[in-house]
């Protein structure tokens, strides 16, 4: 296949991945990696390197809107970035030693988990209970809504921090934003309203990915000829998705995509187990 043909195919695929990733909230990276490795037989390290770059682009690109609305909790994000960046570097180191088939299997598992998470019901929890550590770190805050400012407290800081280290490791190892894991840490463990947790997690994803991207870059996992169509395609797709999202919030669509993504995930696991990757 010539470089030109492959580039066009990848741009189209990455656009679709960015679109689906944005509509489901899964992120474009988790969709583009199976497309590259299974369909186009790209080495998984190249796929991860290119996906990681696209993660930084979509995170930074969409953070603009949230930051200006004042929903993102900057202190919380910054504090937890200590955990995610340390984790990301650890993940990037592990990636060098872990055999490719295990990376594929792990990727499939995280992908299925993320797909399930994207279907969960979002309950807006906001109470002002906070733990002493959260008080010391000034993590509790408020966010604007239709009925004025809503104040919320942050709990179980240590538990959330540990979960964030794990999310960081997965991000550095698999080249994804691990938004689903970050939301588990913030929604499930620290009891933050989902509006705040989604935007803050998105905000953190860029910095986390940058920490492991510099390692990947020096190692040569970021191949410019491949990263170029991936990052441009995913970013444009995500942008389109964010425009559509305002109009359509169909549950059927979410289930449909969750099924497709799960099929991709099972394929990745299968290829990993049989060593065909």
């Amino acid at each position, binding site marked *: 296949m010539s470089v030109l043909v492959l580039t066009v195919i990848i741009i189209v695929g990455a656009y679709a991945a960015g679109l689906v990733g944005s509509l489901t909230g899964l992120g474009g990276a988790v969709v583009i990696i199976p497309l590259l490795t299974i369909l186009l037989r790209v080495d998984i390290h190249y796929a991860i390197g290119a996906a990681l770059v696209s993660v*930084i682009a979509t995170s930074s690109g969409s953070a603009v809107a949230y930051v200006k609305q004042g929903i993102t909790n900057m202190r919380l994000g*910054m504090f937890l970035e200590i955990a995610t960046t340390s984790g990301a570097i650890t993940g990037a180191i592990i990636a*060098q030693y872990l055999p490719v088939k295990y990376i594929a299997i792990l990727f499939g598992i995280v992908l299925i988990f993320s797909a399930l998470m994207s279907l969960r019901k979002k309950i807006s929890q906001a109470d002002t209970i906070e733990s002493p550590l959260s008080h010391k770190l000034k993590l509790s805050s408020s966010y604007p809504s239709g009925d004025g400012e809503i104040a919320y407290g942050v709990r179980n800081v240590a538990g959330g921090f540990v979960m964030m280290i794990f999310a960081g490791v997965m991000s550095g190892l698999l080249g994804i934003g691990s938004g689903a894991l970050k939301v588990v840490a913030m929604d499930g463990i620290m009891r933050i309203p989902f509006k705040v947790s989604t935007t803050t997690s998105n905000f953190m994803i860029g910095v986390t990915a940058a920490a492991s991207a510099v390692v990947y870059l020096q*190692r*040569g996992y970021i191949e410019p000829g491949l*990263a170029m169509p991936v*990052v441009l395609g995913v*970013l444009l797709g995500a942008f389109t998705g964010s425009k559509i999202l305002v109009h359509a919030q169909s549950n059927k669509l979410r289930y449909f995509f969750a099924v497709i993504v799960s099929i991709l995930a099972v394929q990745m696991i299968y290829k990993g187990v049989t060593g065909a990757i």
Partner: protein
Amino acid sequence: MKQAEDKLLKDKDIQHLIGSLLRWGVLLSMTVVAFGGIIYLYRHGHNVSDYSTFKLQPDFTREGWPLLQGVLAFKGRAIIQLGIILLIATPIMRVVFSAIGFFFEKDYLYVLITVLVLGVIMFSMFGGLAG
């Protein structure tokens, strides 16, 4: 009360600044990537591609000085890589600006936390982790 309002105002200003920084960083880096991409495809579009196995990349995609020389020589892949480095730098610059913002708010605990995050990123850059 006045003080609290001032603090909120500053917080908002910094958040706006950071928001703009992210937007311009992404726009600039994507323009550079697209520009490099056009040169790359123009020159190498008809080559046969093979990404099926990992090979060590040329120096100009991985190291500072050779990369700069590649950009000056108008190598498409070097220009793409420059754009990608600008993209990676965008969220890192955001952390730097946050540190400055917290400093002006006299929130020294968060200046420390932010510097710690920067330290982790610096370690990943210069810690020789590429192996």
